[in-house]
């Protein structure tokens, strides 16, 4: 029948008139965001689920409650015993993400092919030794749809850290200064992204990034990246207004490859951990002096 909008038009000729008053094209790009996935949702959130799907959801919910109670018990114990963390050993690596058969489900691999925006391929598998191998093929060909300018990325991201009963939470890394990655790459440079989403839609895409350089070859490498070197970017754009990474707000980590070289890639991962190095005094590696108009690099504006 009639949509609410159509009835409104019939009732009010004024509203109808207002459609013709525009003197310039309406602004298509606004700051408003539809959701934390920025329009890349894999399902339609407004679609009504069928009865069968609803039943499945209720069933899953009850199962989640059971799981949640168990997790909550553990959390209570941990808080009682370990909070606050009193003894942080210097130069001791605490493994946060270990890559083996059981933990690979915690990672989500995305590529430009998923949304018809490119032709790259990637997957995360178990290696012969039981580590994780992020491999595939990068392809920078742009689909000829008239909209896309560039393409060619692959990305693996850990699922958001959640406490019991699916509560969204952040990692607690008090005093830690370094991110430690043990990997075996292929000579390409990867991007390490630490996601620190904020409350409002402008800060949902806040990401602190740094480069993971790999040597290539048959040898493993242990890379220590100081947290002070991570710089803020949002939706792939480095921001003018920089600040040190809020370590208590990290919710997930991602490794991505966007180096624009067509061809196969391979990154074998053992673990990603954190470390406290008392000799590391640097707070932020980038200049923090005040700049007029907040344009990076301009001193006298």
């Amino acid at each position, binding site marked *: 029948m009639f949509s609410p909008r159509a009835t409104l038009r019939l009732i009010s000729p004024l509203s109808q008139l207002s459609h013709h008053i525009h003197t310039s094209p309406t602004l298509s790009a606004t700051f408003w965001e539809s959701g934390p996935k920025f329009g890349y949702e894999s399902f339609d959130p407004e679609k009504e689920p069928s009865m069968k799907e609803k039943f499945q959801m209720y069933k899953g919910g009850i199962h989640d409650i059971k799981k949640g109670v168990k997790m909550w018990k553990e959390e209570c114990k941990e808080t009682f015993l370990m909070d606050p963390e009193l003894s942080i050993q210097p130069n001791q690596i605490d493994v946060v993400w270990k890559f083996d058969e059981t933990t690979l489900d915690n990672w989500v691999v995305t590529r430009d092919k998923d949304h018809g925006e490119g032709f790259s391929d990637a997957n995360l598998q178990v290696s012969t030794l039981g580590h994780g191998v992020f491999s595939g093929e990068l392809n920078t060909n742009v689909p000829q749809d008239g909209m896309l300018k560039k393409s060619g990325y692959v990305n693996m991201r850990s699922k958001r850290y959640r406490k019991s009963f699916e509560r969204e939470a952040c990692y607690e890394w008090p005093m830690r200064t370094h991110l430690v990655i043990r990997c*075996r790459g292929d*000579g390409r440079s990867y991007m390490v992204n630490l996601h620190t989403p904020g409350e409002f839609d402008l800060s949902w895409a806040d990401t602190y990034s740094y480069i993971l350089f790999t*040597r*290539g*070859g048959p040898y493993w490498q242990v890379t220590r990246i100081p947290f002070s070197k991570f710089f803020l970017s949002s939706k792939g754009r480095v921001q003018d207004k920089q600040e040190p990474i809020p370590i208590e707000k990290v919710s997930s980590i991602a490794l991505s490859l966007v180096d*624009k070289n067509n061809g196969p890639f391979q990154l074998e991962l053992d673990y990603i951990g954190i470390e406290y190095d008392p000799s590391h005094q640097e707070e932020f590696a980038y200049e923090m002096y005040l700049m007029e108009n907040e344009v*990076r690099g*301009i001193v006298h504006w």
Partner: protein
Amino acid sequence: MLKVLKCVRNSSMRTKCPAQLVLEGTKYCTSLKQSIALNLTSLHVPCTRKFCSTNDKQLMNYIPRNFNELDQKNKDTFMQVIDTFKEITRQKTGHVEFIDSALKYMKDFGVHKDLEVYKELINVMPKGKLVPENFIQSEFMHYPKQQMCIVNLLEQMEENGVIPDWETQTILINIFGERGYPVRKYYRMMYWMPKFRNASPWNLPNTVPSDTFLLAKIAIERIMSVDTRAKVTVYNSKDIPDAIDQTWIVSGISEAQRGLIATHPKEKSIYVEGGFRIWLRDQSIVYYILRSDPGPEDQYQQEDPDDLRNLIDPFLIPDLFELKKKERSVHEQEDGIILAVAATGTSSQDSLLSWVRALEKDGNPRLGEVPILFTMKSPLGKTEGNEELESAQPSYKQRVGGDGNRTSEEIDSNDKKTIS
């Protein structure tokens, strides 16, 4: 200008250009041939601006928009197109369209990493005309199409790793004023790009050579940077008897690895595995490794030197150092002991055989006594196609090296099929 004049004098194709194109003070480059004038009618974007004179209109129809038509694609012809454009338009209009199309074809001409060309392209824009004169113009992006065009150009520079210089700043400020968006973009580039220019611990030249031999040398040196005592040697398969392929072999081996080969047990086999791929900026190369299975875990030292619970008084135990187990070197990994790394000119099985023979001659006599197996499969990861090794299926491992009298039973000790 002299160059252009010379072009005109030497012209043989000039007569083919339509007569109305040649105005006063307009010069044509002959190396562009008639490509500027011909075959472009369907591709050009005609000038629709009211204030253009008829002469300008005619000229706009002949601006070289299709760089594909040029016979020679190199820096000289690209620069000549830019020069010609400047001459034709006399800085009136069509800059955005010209730069947009030029950006698309830069890679085809091999100039996408050339700062000089980028600067020349920015220089096409008229000076002074686009500078905002009051605060309203300044606030609302004066001449937005022109500004976005140059921002796109700067972004392409950024993608190709071209860092601008001070002259670029002067040109940009002359065109867009001090607060233009391209100028801001330039400042950001000048802040961030030099920071990451040399951030890699394994530094590479700005343009990696496309020659495979030089590439192989850089790659093997980079891999062997794990061990400071490693040496990269270049062997020639001419020097090795019975070698079929005449090619080069870049091999990397360290003192520690020589020691590991010397102490390798005779009954355990060594594998030649590959090829694996290593990337050096936009180039990549395939390398091979010499690997043996890892030893048992308990032969290595597992003690934590910082553990204070069981202190030993070194004065009471005179042979303390003998008691200690072997410390794991960087080459002894959990997935195998890496004994050497190499890249060859042909990546063929014969060249790899020559490599093993060269290593044997070069102070590793143990390699002649140990069975050596060529394999495609490796616990280290995905290997890439070497058709020769694949065709050796079903027994994908082939025995080479060593003395020919060794019986196959000895080699089969590792439960692996071999061909003697």
